[in-house]
């Protein structure tokens, strides 16, 4: 069964990718179609010219979707089994690497943590596949799209089922690749390519740390398999190793390096810049990869490595601090963004920060629980916003929306459910998981915990504000779009709405149904040691009432302010922005991180690159290497060709000269 779960998406990806796109046939066409397709955020309807309509058969999308639905059903079966019993199961696929002391086999490792991730990944993926049938149905390259989606799913499943760090790294890079391909799916659009490259490069920074972490692990433990590492972690506490000339604590170093990878993949503070730009990809991709699954890989990594992090308190503190700052920072930026997808992207970033705080304080189950619920409502929000964008004829700017609620009632309801869940409205999914994180951060009592607690509460208020701002700006108030656009506003087809229903159900009920397993009294029976169990789970049930109420109060506050700003006094935001111009600019420009990085890293890198290119490669290597040699060859060729004059007596002379030279050589040339 688990093999089927992992490999069915791969099979779908291969068939759709190889047979569906018929690479060979397309190579010629691609070239001639180049430049015609400017790309739209969704390939719906707008491709009027006949050129784009070399329609591919629709079977690749049905095939991949069907396979994913099967996979999702199987995952749920497995997950339900894990609710009550089941420990670690391993399925060896093949012997993979054996090099000296390093050996890494391809093994599917299934435990509760994996089962949770399987459900999240396959469910969202299946729903996104189905949604995409509607959303991408008219895109000329849909087979490629579905192939990438399935490839991503396979890589993600590889990641969560890994049994050693190398296998995990394989999945890690696989999802990175799929993310790159999907962000740049509309490769004729320069901004999409730039975003894809940015995502890839920023992730490389994190992956560099991750790889170093893997090396360090192998160096210290002599293996990269999970079980021996976990078993040996306690024995390494307090030991030191040499790193970059410093004597450093072993476990702290390893954990920090691994966390560096997680920071990149999960878009944490300092390495977050790629995520908002990744919204250049098609909206279903944003929902699947950049909200529900891939970006949570970092969270999964830390949870999976929880036995290591438990031995490294400083590393855990660092995780808390970074998580809290991210949660706060992203929420502040989200306050002022006008692009509907960017708001949700910053929201994702912020929510990932929440998860890391939970992991940092040791409440691993809580973090994973939030990952689980977040997948539902964030995917719901993204797909819902896709539906809005679709209705608005590709408009993403919220300033040009408004008053949409009566026109697209179902989408409105869905977005409302997502917003409620995100802001933590009582008894929705977010209410249980997010509040639990805030409670656990308070319960940890350590310095970073208190720091995190206050930041998270403030962020919760901001979250409510920007979420409701999004809802109100989009669906309520006066319509700000042109009359023509408003006329065209229409509800999405059923194939796009049905996934929303499922996600809405999850967003409403996932917290309520599963809270006992994930964070309640069935905690130990459910997790069975797949994440470390700490006393904080117990402690978070014994905290003051005001702490429990604080997130809810923050939420209400956020809602009220939003209502005031966008319904009651729509002129207020502009006034406020004008009064606090520097702060507004600072937030609108995302704390100037892009500019800062551009100045510190990008420009020096370009300068260095240009130096190597022009001087090093162009002048020195090409000049003396290929170009110099080829110029020399051409020169010789011209001389040689000029010898061939066409006159017989020249030819005869050449022969005679040859003979004379040889004879002279024998006469005087030292032949004897």
């Amino acid at each position: 069964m688990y093999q089927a779960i992992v490999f069915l998406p791969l099979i779908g990806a291969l068939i759709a990718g190889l047979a569906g796109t018929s690479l060979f046939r397309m190579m010629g066409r691609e070239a001639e179609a180049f430049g015609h397709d400017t790309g739209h955020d969704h390939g719906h309807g707008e491709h009027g010219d006949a050129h784009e309509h070399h329609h591919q058969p629709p079977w690749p999308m049905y095939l991949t979707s069907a396979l994913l639905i099967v996979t999702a059903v199987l995952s749920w079966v497995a997950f339900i089994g894990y609710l009550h019993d089941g420990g670690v199961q391993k399925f060896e696929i093949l012997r993979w690497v054996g090099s000296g002391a390093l050996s890494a086999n391809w093994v599917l490792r299934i435990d509760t943590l994996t089962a949770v991730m399987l459900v999240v990944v396959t469910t969202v993926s299946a729903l996104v596949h189905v949604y995409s049938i509607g959303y991408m149905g008219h895109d000329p390259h849909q087979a490629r799209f579905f192939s990438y989606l399935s490839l991503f799913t396979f890589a993600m499943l590889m990641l969560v089922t890994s049994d050693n760090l190398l296998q995990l790294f394989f999945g890690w890079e696989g999802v990175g690749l799929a993310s790159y391909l999907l962000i740049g799916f509309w490769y004729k659009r320069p901004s999409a390519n730039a975003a894809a490259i940015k995502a890839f490069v920023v992730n490389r920074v994190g992956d560099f740390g991750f790889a170093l972490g893997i090396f360090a692990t192998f160096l210290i433990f002599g293996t990269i398999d999970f079980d021996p590492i976990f078993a040996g972690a306690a024995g390494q506490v307090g030991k030191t190793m040499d790193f970059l000339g410093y004597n450093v604590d072993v476990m702290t170093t390893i954990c920090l390096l691994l966390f560096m990878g997680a920071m990149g993949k999960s878009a944490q503070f300092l390495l977050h810049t790629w995520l908002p730009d990744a919204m250049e990809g098609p909206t279903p991709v944003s929902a699947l990869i950049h909200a529900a699954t891939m970006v949570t890989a970092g969270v999964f990594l830390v949870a999976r490595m929880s036995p290591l992090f438990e031995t490294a308190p400083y590393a855990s503190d660092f995780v808390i601090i970074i998580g809290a700052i991210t949660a706060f920072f992203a929420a502040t930026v989200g306050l002022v963004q006008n692009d509907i997808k960017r708001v949700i992207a910053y929201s994702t970033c912020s929510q990932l920060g929440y998860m890391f705080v939970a992991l940092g304080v040791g409440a691993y189950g809580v973090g994973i629980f939030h990952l689980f619920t977040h997948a539902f409502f964030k995917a719901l929000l993204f797909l819902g916003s896709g539906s809005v964008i679709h209705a608005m004829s590709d408009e993403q700017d919220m300033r040009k929306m408004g008053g949409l609620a009566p026109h697209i009632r179902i989408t409105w309801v869905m977005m409302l459910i997502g917003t409620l869940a995100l802001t933590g409205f009582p008894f929705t999914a977010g209410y249980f998981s997010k509040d639990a994180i805030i409670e656990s951060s308070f319960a940890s009592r350590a310095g970073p915990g208190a720091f995190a607690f206050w930041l998270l509460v403030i962020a919760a208020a901001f979250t409510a504000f920007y979420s409701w701002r999004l809802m109100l700006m989009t669906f309520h108030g006066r319509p700000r779009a042109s009359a023509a656009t408003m006329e065209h506003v229409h509800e999405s087809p059923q194939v796009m709405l049905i996934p929303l229903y499922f996600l809405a159900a999850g967003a409403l009920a996932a917290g309520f149904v599963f809270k006992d397993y994930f964070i309640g009294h069935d905690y130990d029976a459910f997790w069975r040691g797949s994440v470390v169990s700490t006393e904080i789970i117990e402690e978070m049930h014994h905290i003051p009432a005001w702490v429990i109420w604080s997130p809810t109060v923050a939420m209400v506050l956020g809602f009220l302010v939003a209502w005031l700003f966008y319904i009651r006094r729509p002129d207020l935001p502009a006034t406020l922005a004008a009064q606090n111009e520097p702060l507004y600019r600072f937030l609108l420009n995302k704390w100037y991180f892009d500019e800062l990085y551009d100045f510190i890293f990008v420009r020096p890198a370009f300068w260095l690159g240009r130096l190597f290119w022009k001087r090093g490669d162009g002048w020195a290597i090409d000049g003396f290497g290929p170009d110099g040699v080829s110029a020399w060859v051409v020169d010789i060729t011209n001389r040689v060709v000029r010898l061939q004059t066409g006159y017989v007596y020249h030819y005869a002379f050449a022969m005679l000269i040859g003979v004379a030279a040889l004879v002279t050589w024998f006469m005087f040339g030292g032949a004897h």
Partner: protein
Amino acid sequence: MTLATLFFYLFSAVMLASAVMVISSRNPVHSVLFLILAFFNAAGLFILLGAEFLAMILVVVYVGAVAVLFLFVVMMLDIDFAELRQGMLNYLPVGATIGLILMVELVLVVAGWSISPDLLKTVTSPAPSVTDMTNTEALGRILYTKYIYYFQAAGLILLVSMIGAIVLTLRHKPNVKRQNVSDQVARGPATAIEIRDVKPGQGI
């Protein structure tokens, strides 16, 4: 100094001189005539060597046929040799240098050459003494037996050159009357002659 030696130097000197004249004389007809003179002197050298057959062949074939043919061709084709030779001076220095180098080297080598007495034994078919049999007979004895292979090969080469000459030059022109020997021979009195009884005072 015997008479034979005297004649050897005479023939050689005249032959070399006329060979130089072949390429240097302005009038092409003179060139051919000098060529004929060179052939005659070569024939004389052959006679001195006792190769009377080769000498006669040289005179008969080369002088009698080839050189005369040359003469016809040169006279019939109006070739401006002066023009052809114009470029020659440009190449004279290079050509002369190479020729000189080669000549010096060859002279150096050949001057130091002496046939060892043993080597004469390896010669496959030494010419018999003139007193035993004539050159012609000696050649005839080996040409169709020992050297049948070379002889036939030479025949094939001549065949090829004949085919080549025909292929490259023969053109079948329509409306050209040709002599047909068999027709001529087959023509007897019965077909060629018609006897008419001509009455006096009347025409046919």
